């Protein structure tokens, strides 16, 4: 199928893609290098159950967040590709 506005579609695709990568990348940095390393001392003042919060982020929380990030990215990109008609057909 010929698409007259391919370049426009591509531009939207990349703009959206970059925006989501940036948002998710910031969260990625915040939970791991941020909460787990750089701000770990102040966060350790907060205790939840038997965990100091900073320690929890470093050994548990960051990993749980990573899973969410990958699924959110997969979902967002799938929806975007559908909206712009860029879905791949199975080979």
């Amino acid at each position, binding site marked *: 199928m010929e698409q007259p506005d391919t370049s426009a579609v591509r531009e939207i695709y990349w703009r959206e893609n970059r925006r989501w990568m940036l948002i998710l990348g910031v969260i990625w940095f915040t939970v791991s290098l941020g909460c787990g390393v*750089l701000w*770990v001392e102040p966060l350790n003042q907060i205790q939840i159950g038997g*965990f*100091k919060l900073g320690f929890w982020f470093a050994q548990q929380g960051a990993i749980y967040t*990573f899973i969410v990030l990958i699924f959110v990215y997969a979902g967002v*990109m799938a929806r975007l590709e559908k909206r712009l008609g860029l879905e*791949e057909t199975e080979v």
Partner: protein
Amino acid sequence: MTLTETTYWIVGASFLLYILIAIRSRAGTTQEFYVAGKGIHPVANGMATAADWMSAASFISMAGLIGLSYNGYGGSVFLMGWTGGYVILAMLIAPYLRKYGKFTVPEFIGDRYYSDTARVVAVICLIICSVTYVIGQMKGIGVAFSRFLETDYETGLFSGMVIVFFYAVLGGMKGITYTQIAQFCVLIFAYTVPAIFISLQLTGQPIPQLGLGSTLADGSYLLEKLDRTLLDLGFQEYTTSVRGSTLNMAAFTASLMIGTAGLPHVIIRFFTVPTVRAARTSAGWALVFIAILYTTAPAVAAMARLNIIQTLEPQPGQHLAIEERPTWFKNWEQTGLLGIEDKNADGRIQYSADPEQNELVTLDNDILVLANPEIANLPNWVIALVAAGGLAAAL
């Protein structure tokens, strides 16, 4: 049945399972062998990716690194580094390589920048990354096989290398997704079952991830108790001991992330699902399966450390007599990865942070996971299961 017999039975059964699956899935043509992957469901592919990704280093070494030499919090660099790198790989690298139609990063770089020099530089980086990775795997293989065959470390390493070589090259089994899935099941079962047992024993909480933050029988929090006990022995606090400095921790984590993002055997897994969209979902599932082990590991680390200390010094000041040391202790002394030296000649083992006084002179990180069920007095079948898991990870 003795422990050795049980171990041989369970390990033998798991090997038989992999071989059977491999033979069955090889029924098709050669061509099918290479592209069969294209029809694999994202969840199944995620499981296979997880097995591929979590090899000997994650299964055998990581909890020991965290619990022993990195003394708790310092070991977080491995947890965040390796999983964080996976996120970069899954979001920023693999889907685009796939879209571009290239299998490896060097190929992409060479084409994108029209430069063979760039390609060679990328290949050199990749080789450095991969060799570093393989060194870790080989250490794990040596430890797993030396304990399994009850030999010293070197003999274990060489026999393990030979077995892995034949397994990978002759059978070509490593490439078969369904063998990987079977290996993942053995591996994750072997890792979580002892962790659940130990968490129940110590905290009454069956989920190790929650057990780590729960209270012990005496009402104090597990992590607080561990902090205090380690301080008494002259170590740093478990939950706050930084490796080097904060800057070092950040740089260490970042370098593990970047290195992980380039591992070729993981990238290749993104080519075995039907579409890029499926590749992205599959990456998420892979991380779910990886996280089962990666979030259990810190619990295993802390609980095993506490158990080791309590074995050596059940009550403050009451040290374990050398003659009364448990069987696991003697088993591991055979491999040379655990060693004691009665420095003050009182016939007892004093464990301390001070190298002058410490009588537990060798305590290799890599034995923590494999010795863990024995330390906690778990039944023989659990110990044998962990051995099978360690070998599954090594393959």
